[in-house]
């Protein structure tokens, strides 16, 4: 398994290098982790361990980087389950002058390449079910998926609690497994750091990739409006305070530089879960040699 994982990492690097991406490393200890309502950072002295490298990577794009990727550890406090580990490897990449549709093409090409390199085929089997990586992926908008399986439209009437619950209880269990599935166009309120769709501001340009029913990657057309970003951070800080959670300080440097960022597409992909799928393992226990 160690060798297999190493081959996956090498294949990922090779794909990015061949497509003119630059591998970068950004700080792991942060004083201002990204504010997200439900993601909790692990304190490390007077800093926090990063929950994602996104703010620093976007600052690199704002400073002129065109195509960058990073492979490295991220930490999320309290996330321990058969498909979660409090410490995990994240692959994150950004493409300037692009949107969430462009980075979806990157993702398709990357997965087909990696599967070909490590498995010799894109026709996989995951836990007894066929899973074919190329060329057709199932694509469902959040509204379509929720109307079909949960009986309501969260884009019209957003309810955060019901949205999260029905996603886990009603939508995810029904997602097709034979091909990768893209859930796209999230309600703007569930868009986090994604920009609104220009022709339909009720939805955010965000997608999530599922492989074999397992959530693998999250992508945005990045929000590059510093005013709206500040408003969203402030709302999130208020909600965190109300929920009794640590409120991280605003990253003022990020907000100051965000105004220089070109339209950008970004993807965050969980590498441990990708290796799990490629190696046909049911849980992270079978994959990680040192499990917390």
């Amino acid at each position, binding site marked *: 398994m160690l060798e297999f994982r190493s081959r996956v990492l090498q294949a990922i690097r090779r794909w990015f290098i061949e497509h003119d991406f630059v591998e970068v490393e950004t700080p792991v200890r942060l004083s201002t982790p990204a504010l997200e309502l439900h993601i909790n950072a692990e304190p490390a002295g007077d800093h926090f361990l990063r929950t994602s490298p996104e703010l620093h990577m976007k600052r690199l794009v704002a400073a002129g980087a065109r195509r960058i990727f990073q492979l490295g550890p991220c930490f999320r406090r309290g996330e*321990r*389950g058969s498909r979660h580990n409090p410490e995990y490897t994240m692959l994150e990449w950004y493409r300037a002058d692009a949107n969430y549709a462009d980075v979806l093409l990157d993702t398709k090409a990357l997965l087909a390449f990696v599967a070909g390199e490590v498995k010799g085929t894109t026709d996989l089997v995951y836990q007894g079910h066929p899973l074919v990586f190329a060329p057709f992926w199932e694509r469902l908008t959040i509204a379509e998926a929720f109307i079909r399986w949960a009986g309501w439209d969260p884009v019209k009437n957003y309810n955060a609690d019901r949205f*999260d619950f029905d*996603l886990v209880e009603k939508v995810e269990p029904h997602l097709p497994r034979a091909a990768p599935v893209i859930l796209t166009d999230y309600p703007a309120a*569930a868009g986090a750091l994604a920009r609104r769709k220009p022709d339909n501001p009720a939805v955010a340009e965000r997608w999530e990739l599922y492989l074999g029913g397992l959530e693998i990657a999250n992508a945005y057309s990045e929000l590059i409006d510093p005013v709206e970003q500040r408003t969203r951070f402030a709302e999130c800080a208020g909600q965190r305070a109300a929920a009794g959670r640590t409120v991280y300080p605003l990253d003022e440097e990020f907000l100051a530089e965000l105004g220089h960022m070109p339209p950008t597409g970004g993807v965050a992909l969980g590498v441990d879960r990708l290796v799990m799928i490629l190696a046909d393992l049911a849980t992270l226990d079978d994959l990680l040699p040192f499990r917390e």
Partner: protein
Amino acid sequence: MYSASDLRKGLKIEMDGVPFDIVEYEFYRPGKGQAMYKCRIRNLLNGNVTDKTFREVDSIDQPDLEEREMQYSYNDGEHFVFLENRTYEQVTLSPDVLGTAKYFLREDMTVKVLFHNGRAITVNLPSYVEKEIVETEPGVRGDTATNVTKPAKIDSGLEIRVPLFINQGDWVRRVFRACGEEVSWSRGLKLENGVSAIRQQPDAVSSGARIP
């Protein structure tokens, strides 16, 4: 009160006054959403297993449970009488509370009785119990297949299923996990009712003897 993040396998919780045992537990945090705790829970009163998903914000009641060690004394014809080890208090339990455990009791056997709000709800036997087969069709010599079984009666009258090579007068061993759930013993012999078949007397087996 527990918060959802306290949930884990083996934790005992209470919902609407009913105590439950968490038999399976899975952490979920979909996308950027709130954490969910998908649990499979077992009703400690009737053994029924159901699924229940808790949200991060849920708080969950803690049941008043107490486990007491007791020694089985006798059956008065209907009820089962135990002696509490510490206080020598006599406790009478109905056959309902014992369930199938009643077929595996032996005089002076030490058991653990689980009380909920002061009322006995389950009886946990020692980690294994051995019983003699008192009635079964004659064994088929040389047939060591374990997936083909036949009915057999143990000395307490319970009918179980055993492999064909088991004879009248043989002993079988039933293994329990701490929570009272039966599992089959080692050696790849997985039989219905979680009973492992053994050909030797119990003493020989506890010293590590194996099925030929």
